[in-house]
């Protein structure tokens, strides 16, 4: 049996680690390489780096970060943000990442999912979806895909996009609730469950994790294969160990390293 995965997400801007709360007001919280190494040594299962660097001429910094992480961290990690083509993906994979996260670029050009999957295998392609509840009944599933940190609505139904992403070649899906992101009040369980029940690929719950019991809920009631955490680890509220021990004690299969 596979273990449920604990994944941490590191937002990187201009080579520095930042934490965004509801994607606005980013705060500099340190060096991404040393944070990655610390989490690796603490027994984290996987890492995600989102490059939120605004200007494209600074993008080379991210490749340097990826290479340095790959020299020090021996667990799988993925990289997202600013990847527009299979060629962009190749650069981060060659720098040492196992997977790429496609988000905004895939919304604008869904074919990039297939291109990347054909070139690197479905296991290397993660479709990351930013999702907001659509209260007005305009979306069949009740949830809409948004981009640019929630500032742009796409008019695309979240469930429809998840199914299409899988058909196009995504090997995993990140379900990131923009409504829950940064609140520390728990994952959007209804949304996560709906996606997990309707795709045949692993689902990663994201946005809202604030306490170990939130992860337990996402991995059981939410039907997720993995849960993504940021603030609760970055600010030292919880350790990798304490989160994993909680999940293990409640009967989930978890990789314990100590």
């Amino acid at each position, binding site marked *: 049996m596979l273990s449920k995965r604990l994944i941490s997400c590191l937002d990187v801007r201009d080579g520095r680690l930042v934490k965004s709360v509801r994607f606005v007001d980013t705060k500099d919280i340190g060096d991404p390489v040393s944070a990655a190494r610390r989490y690796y040594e603490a027994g984290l*299962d996987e890492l995600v780096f989102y490059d939120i660097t605004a200007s494209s001429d600074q993008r080379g910094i991210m490749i340097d970060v990826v290479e340095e992480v790959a020299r020090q961290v021996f667990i799988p990690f993925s990289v997202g943000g600013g990847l527009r083509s299979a060629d962009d993906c190749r650069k981060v994979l060659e720098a040492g990442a196992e997977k790429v996260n496609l988000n905004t670029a895939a919304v604008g050009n869904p074919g990039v999912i297939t291109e990347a999957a054909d070139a690197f295998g479905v296991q290397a392609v993660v479709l990351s979806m930013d999702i907001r509840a659509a209260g007005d009944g305009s979306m069949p599933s009740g949830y809409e895909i948004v981009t640019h940190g929630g500032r742009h609505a796409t008019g695309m139904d979240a469930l429809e996009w998840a199914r299409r992403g899988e058909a196009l070649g995504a090997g995993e899906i990140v379900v990131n609730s923009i409504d829950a992101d940064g609140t520390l009040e728990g994952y959007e369980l209804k949304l996560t469950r709906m996606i997990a029940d309707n795709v045949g690929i692993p689902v990663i719950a994201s946005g809202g994790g604030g306490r170990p019991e939130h992860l337990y809920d996402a991995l059981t009631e939410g039907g997720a294969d993995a849960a993504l955490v940021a603030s609760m680890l970055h600010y030292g509220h919880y350790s990798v160990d304490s989160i994993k021990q909680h999940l293990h004690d409640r009967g989930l299969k978890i990789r314990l390293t100590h």
Partner: protein
Amino acid sequence: MIHIVDYDAGNQTSVKRALDHLGVASVITSDSEELVRAERIVFPGVGHAHSALETLRERGLDKALKSAAGQGTPILGICVGCQVLLTGSEETDLPCLDLIGGQCLRFRPDDDALKVPHMGWNALEVGREHPVLRHVRPGDEVYFVHAYYPVPGDERDVLARSRYGVEFASVIGRRNIVAAQFHVEKSGPVGLKMLGEFARWDGHTC
């Protein structure tokens, strides 16, 4: 010095970085003559057995690996580099290297909850003592990404097992060859210790 076989398999750099981290000297090579003379070989792999075999043949690396295996060079296969050591695979019509008798089969889980590829952390149960596995403790987990799994013809070639719907051989070995279905280079401290032991292994099983 460890020679890492370069056949555009994708993870040769990750393997090299892990060896660098351990302070073990290594070189990535696609030169078949160099490989035959190597002291020790890591045979990595990601992706498809079919394209792996095609590239190995084009570069003459299939023959070089067979020669090295025959002369007792310690060889560590990883993932696809483990699968193509067997006689054949359901993934390809091409014959594999046949250094360990057996076949690679595709996961066909009855349970819809078991997704293919098998991807993530899963436990390793060592069934036969082996120098490369001496640090592995019961329940230690390692990182897998694969849709096919090795089924050696001789039960004695199974060194460790894992379970995903079926029980399958996750580490196989015969004489101077040992091979892991999981990504040793991405399996945290458990994988690094295996690499470290391989770097010291003389190719004898007892």
